Every structure is written in C-alpha cells, then in structure tokens.
C-alpha cells in the first residue's frame, strides 16, 4: 500500500501554493494553525479546523448512517469546516467525480480512538499481538484476542467509510492524515490528562503503540478502498517507533516542530502530484 498521493479526481493545480491548506479534525490539527512552509517562492500557510465535540472526533463518530445519501457528517466537524471557510461545494451534488482544485483539506483522525481504548482497565493486565509483529509482546501480561479487538473496532467503524465518502462529496477531495506516533512516556501522558482533571491509567507504551497502529491501519484500508490519499506521518516523525522527543509537546500532541515537519511533507506531496 503506497502512502502517496492517490486522488481519484483530476487535479488542476495543487491547493497550497500561495494558498492556505486546512488541517481539520481532532486536536492534533491545532499544531498546524498558523505555520507557514516556504519553499522557494512558494509559501503555504496552514490553518486548523478543530472539531471540538465533547467526546472528540474519532473513527466511530465521523458520521452517522451507512449509505452514501443517508450519511450525516459529524455536526461539529461541519461547523469547524464552515468556520474556516470550507463550505460545502454543492448542497445537491451527488457526483463523486466533480472536479475541484486539488486537495482542499486534510482530515486528521484516529488519535482519540486509540487513546480512549488505551484507558480501559483490561490493558493493565493484557497486551495484544498484532499479526504483523507478534514478537512485540509483553510475556508478563495476558494476551487479549486480536481478532476480538479488530472485530470491535471494525464494528465501531461501520459508518466510517460512508462518512469519508460523504465528506468528499460535500466538501470536496481531501486527504487523511495520521495523528503523531504515541509518546513513549506514560507518565507524561498521565500528567497531561491529570492537568485536565482526568484521572486515567493508560496501557503500557508498547501496547498503546499497537492499539494506535491498528486503528491507523484500518483507516488506511478504508482510504485505499475509496481512493483517498492517506498520509502516514509516523515514518517521518518517529524515533524508535515513538514520537521523536524533538516533536513532543504534552505527552499526547505534537509540537510546532512536528507540524512544520509534516507541513513540509504535505507541501512536497502536493507539489509532486501537481508536476
């Protein structure tokens, strides 16, 4: 699976050259707000469209309904997009091949689901084996059936693909961006949530990593099925699987340096697609 530009629509020019690029979605989008990527004479300013729903935007609540015409996109996400001027391209359009000027925005999603999952008490006792990396397993813990975890996640994501389709139809072509890799330090994560009045235990860092990775693998699979660009930031921002310390902010989010690194990645991908 190539994590490259894979749009199914015809591009005229890439959005982003002397233009703004919107990163929409969960709180991981906030790091991008206001950054500028300058390459030669080209300058791309990023802005965030933060979906501030109470439970966070995740793969399970991107949309309701499971048919192309009957899907309702998360209302808070629509508000966030409208706020930055990303209006629906056509209220009545049902034509998926409608041509627009390149990618209008990126959706960052998947971080909330994994972190919430990691707070379940079972993960204090259990670890999980990803089929692709069974050797990364804590032998001092019990093994949670991977098939069950996958089954539950896929059930929760039953409306996700329909939501992606509805987003594209209503707001134009977009790409999906992963959140940053997990932080290696549980303590920092706990402190981050305690500072917000949330008392939580988290799964061990390797377990958190696996839980998050599988969510993103499922998102990638949905994107591939729909021909949506999927940009995995992990290979570009990780050190020894976890978020590079240079990009850490608060135990959960990436910092501005992270956003600038990913921003350069996105601008480069846009330019490569345009040429």
């Amino acid at each position: 699976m190539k994590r490259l530009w894979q749009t199914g629509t015809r591009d005229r020019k890439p959005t982003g050259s002397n233009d703004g690029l919107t990163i929409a979605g969960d709180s991981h989008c906030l790091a991008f707000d206001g950054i500028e990527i300058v390459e030669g004479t080209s300058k791309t300013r990023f802005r965030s469209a933060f979906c501030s729903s109470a439970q966070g935007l995740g793969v399970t609540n991107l949309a309701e309904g499971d048919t192309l015409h009957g899907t309702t996109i998360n209302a808070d996400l629509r508000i966030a997009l409208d706020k930055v001027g990303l209006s629906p391209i056509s209220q009545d359009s049902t034509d998926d091949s409608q041509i627009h000027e390149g990618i209008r925005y990126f959706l960052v999603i998947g971080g909330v689901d994994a972190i919430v999952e990691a707070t379940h008490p079972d993960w204090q006792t259990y670890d999980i084996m990803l089929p692709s990396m069974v050797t990364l397993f804590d032998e001092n813990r019990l093994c949670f059936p991977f098939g069950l975890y996958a089954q539950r996640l896929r059930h929760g994501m039953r409306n996700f693909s329909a939501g992606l389709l509805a987003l594209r139809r209503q707001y134009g072509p977009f790409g999906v961006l992963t959140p940053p890799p997990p932080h290696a330090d549980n303590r920092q994560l706990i402190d981050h949530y305690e500072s917000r009045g949330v008392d939580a235990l988290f799964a061990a860092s390797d377990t958190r990593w696996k839980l998050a990775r599988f969510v993103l693998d499922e998102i990638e699979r949905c994107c591939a099925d729909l021909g949506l660009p999927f940009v995995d930031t992990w290979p570009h921002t990780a050190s020894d699987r976890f978020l590079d310390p240079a990009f850490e902010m608060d135990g959960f989010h990436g910092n501005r340096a992270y956003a600038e690194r990913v921003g350069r990645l996105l601008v480069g991908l846009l330019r490569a697609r345009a040429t």
Partner: protein
Amino acid sequence: MVETPPHAVDPASAVPFHLAPSDRIATAGSCFAQHIARYLPKLGLTYYIAERGPQRLSEPERQERQYGTFSARYGNIYTTRQMLQLLQRAFGEFTPLADHWEMGDRTEGFVDPFRPTIEPNGFSSLAEMHWDRAHHLRAVRDLVSSADVFVFTLGLTEGWIDRRDDAVFPSCPGCGSGTYDPDLHAFKNFGVAEVTEDLERACRYMRSKNPSIRVILTVSPVPLVATMSGNHVLASTVYSKSVLRVAAEAVSNALDYCCYFPSFEIVTGPHARGTYFRDDLRTITDHGVDHVMRCFLKAFVQGDGRREEHGHPVVADKQASSRPSTPSITQIVCDEETLANRYAGSKTYGIE
C-alpha cells in the same frame, strides 16, 4: 416405579460424599455437561472457573469464545481418551504432533486442533494461538490441582485420531477447520476396555495431582447426531452409551473417591416416556434438565432440609427461583450441531 409420578423418579443411589457450598466444583465433558455447569450456582454450589477471559467481554462474546462454558476453555471433551490426553498435555507429559489447523470457509485464522471451536474466527496469528494454548494448559493444571470436585460427563466413544501419535481430536479434521488426510487421520470407536482404562487412568491422574479431589461421573443422555461406524445412528448411540455406562460403573466401583450419578437414566428411563427430548429427539428439555439437577441436589447436597414440592426445582439461591429454571437451550454449545448448522448455511449454535 410405575406408581411414582415421572418427575419424582429418583434413581440416584447413596453417594460416598456430599458437596458443600464452598467446594470448588469443576466440570468437563460433552454438551450435556454445560447444563450441569450452568445449574451449579442455582443450587447454591460453587462453579469453579479457572480461565475467565478479559473482563470487558460481553456475555455473547464470552459465550462465543466458551469462557465459562466449562471450568477451563477446553471446549467439549467427548471421549475418555480425550480427557486423559488433556491431563497429560496440561502436565507436560504429552505434546501432540498436530500443532495447528487453518480455518476453512475462506476465513484466515489458526485453530487449535484440540479446541477447534473456542475462537470463532480462529486466532489471528500462530503466536497468539500458541500463547493461548500455553495459558489454557496452565489453567487446566491449576484447575486439577485445586478443584474439590470434578464432574465429568461422558459423551461419546467415537472420535478421530492422529495416526502418528493417537492424539484424539474433538471433531473430524476438515469439518469447519483443518484438512482431512486419510494418511494422517483415522476414525476410532473406542471399546469398553479402552474406555474403562482411560477413564480410570484419568481419575487416578487427577488424584495423583490433587489427593483430595473427588470425581462424579455421569453419562450424557444426548444421542449421537451422526456416526461413522457404519451402523444406524440409533444402534451407535446405544453402543456408545452402553460402553460409557459400563465404564462409569466399573471406575466408580474401583475408586472410592469416584461415584456415578444417573443423568442418563433420569432422562431416558421409561418413566419419562421420551418427554424429556425435544422434537429433534436430541435436545433435552428444560424439564429434563430440571429433573436431573433436582436429583443431583438431593443426592449431593447434605442437610439442605428442603423438600420437593409440586415437582418444581428446589434451589438454594432464592433469586434463582424467580428466574427460568434452566439457561436457554440456544446457549448450549454442541460441536456436532455447530458443524451441522455450518454446512446448512447457518452459523447459530443450538437448535433455535
């Protein structure tokens, strides 16, 4: 017996030991054993589960994965040879050559040949399957070492073996998972001498690991759904049940910590006139299970001081008396039914 109301017939003899509420009672065996397992708490007895699974499993997920169906997640144990080999495997004395099967039906996944139905879509990796097997066998060791009572329901004499090491599978390779290979696999219908010897060895084995364990043997009244013997299924059923009954009698006579409880007789005896079977002539009715457990309670629970009134079950748990008297029949996992339904295009357990 002809003058006794059918529901009051109690063929249980005096038993050599009684059960206390604090006794940890383990169960294993064929489909009928699941009724016993589920009924024990209703009788105020302690059903011992050594392998519970993740806390967050919903009840349907737990049942689908057979957590709590028996005292450990071994699935149905149909033959005495299978029981003996489970004990030997748990204590490191036998490692079958058959390591894993692959799921059929175009489903990816790995299956433990000795527990082919405990993970609905198979394990996602071999490593996970190996881990689970090791964990399960550890649980069986713990179970045998610490149970006070072991109730074993004998189900079949027919089975499938690996020709290389005589390992017994609970179901035919190739039915649902695995691949049948006539060079590797063979049908086996155990004879009375074999069954008796295996049963006695299994009981003695448990006792050697746990000198205070007591064993209750019972024969499942559920007839065979099919037979590979070449005989009519009715003839095969009578043969199997007869062999199992003789073996249970012989072993309970030979070992003073072992006794026989007549589930088979209660359900199939002439007093019942066949009314304890549902229309499929296999599934035991709620009334049949009630009758069995009523007699079980009377035989084994000493000094409960209760009397049977109007033929209704007398239970130790007051809350249980307001619930349906038996768990839903649809929740009983029977590999034979499962396989039959799978080939019929249905994936539901049970008959409804």
